[in-house]
């Protein structure tokens, strides 16, 4: 079966529907599936619920889908870098569900692993726990969190073979591996596409079973959000 598609538009063909839930990998602008996000924007699909740690920035990442008002709800842990997000939220045009970052990651991991709920001590005694079941284990209180799955997961990887086995690079890994497991359909954009056998099987981060479609992204911006350097000592 061929998983390789020639561009981001064809890789998403037939998958997008108004009102659907999409998981999008990345932390800040690091490791985001930028060509797939641009193709989702171009498709015009709307009423989306997006599950992503952040909301991009103005003009980049998921910020693109906010500009075109394609998003009605976000499930995220931190959205502080996006001014448009703040404006839309304050006008009531956008709903937000904040999750602690580790709870968000674990909800997605659980979703992909067939675990409907779990107990965590994160957020006990805070707004996050309101309305949720609290249970005591070994003398400590834990809050029950439900797992998350999505209609579609879009992820970014450094390298893939045609089977869909993925390798990520440095901190661009972040949410991508867990999201790849939690999409009913998962589409991966990859920087390098190689033949089966060209990746050492011991070094594969995401086995190909989790990846339905692959697109080789040849022109990526990979913008840096906070360029920070130190001086050379001469």
């Amino acid at each position, binding site marked *: 079966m061929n998983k390789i598609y020639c561009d981001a538009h064809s890789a998403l063909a037939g998958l997008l529907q108004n009102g659907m839930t999409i998981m999008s990998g990345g*932390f*800040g*602008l*690091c*490791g985001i599936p930028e060509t797939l996000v641009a193709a989702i924007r171009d498709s015009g699909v709307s009423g989306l619920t997006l599950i992503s*740690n952040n909301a991009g920035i103005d003009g980049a990442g998921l910020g693109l889908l906010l500009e075109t008002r394609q998003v009605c709800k976000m499930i*995220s*842990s*931190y*959205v*502080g*870098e996006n001014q448009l997000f*703040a404006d839309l*939220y*304050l006008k009531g045009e956008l709903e*937000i569900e*904040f999750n*602690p*970052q*580790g*709870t*968000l*990651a*674990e909800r*997605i*991991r659980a979703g992909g692993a067939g675990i409907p709920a779990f107990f*965590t*001590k*994160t*957020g*006990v*005694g*805070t*707004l*996050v726990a309101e309305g949720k079941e609290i249970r005591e284990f070994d003398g400590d209180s834990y809050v029950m969190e439900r797992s998350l799955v999505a209609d579609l997961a879009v992820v970014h990887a*450094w390298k893939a073979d045609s089977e869909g086995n993925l390798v*990520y*690079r*440095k*901190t*661009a*890994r*972040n*949410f*991508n*591996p*867990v999201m790849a497991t939690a999409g009913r359909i998962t589409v991966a954009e990859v920087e390098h596409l190689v033949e089966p056998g060209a990746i050492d099987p011991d070094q594969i*981060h995401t086995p190909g079973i989790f990846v339905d479609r692959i697109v080789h992204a040849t022109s990526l911006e*990979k*913008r*840096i*959000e*906070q*360029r*920070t*350097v*130190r001086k*050379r000592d001469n």
Partner: protein
Amino acid sequence: MSWSRDEMASRAAAELKDGYYVNLGIGIPTLVSNFIPPGITVQLQSENGMLGMGPFPFEGEEDPDLINAGKQTITELPSTSYFDSAQSFGMIRGGHIDVSILGAMQVAENGDLANWMIPGRMVKGMGGAMDLVAGVKRVIVLMEHTARNEPKLLRRCTLPLTGKGVVDMVITDLGVFTIDPEGMTLTERAPGVALEKIRQRTEASFAVRSGLA
């Protein structure tokens, strides 16, 4: 004289021990990495998926795939490992990180912490703060003693909590406090800062370590 930001960071760094795994928050806590005591090695964790965080890169060597939790470009070390967000918070929630040093808006005398939300204003989100304070073995808050002359060390937090009863130590520009089940104790004063001044600027009730008055 109260402590400068660098002096506060240096005081916090004195809490680190050889072999510690440490998570530093954004702001003054980031400065702690400049004051790791000589002769000890600690590994810095960045919750976006890295252990063994190196210094900022030289100009021209920035890598868009290599950032810290503040989205700044950084570098790797020979000890570095990378992992996904679920494993990163597994090591945080699972109690494998020795110390978390982070900022705060308010800390209460019972160890409650508020640092993520001011109702009525745009809320940015808690990021990883709730996981860190719930799971890391020891939580040290590094913050200015007051904000616009209002105390930040309170009897009870008035802002929505990040964690309940989670803070073990508070280092401010005026001194150092410990918090345990018995309550809050002032254990150090910044040089030349009178106890009376600390009392005036603190709403929380606190004991004073013997010999410190």
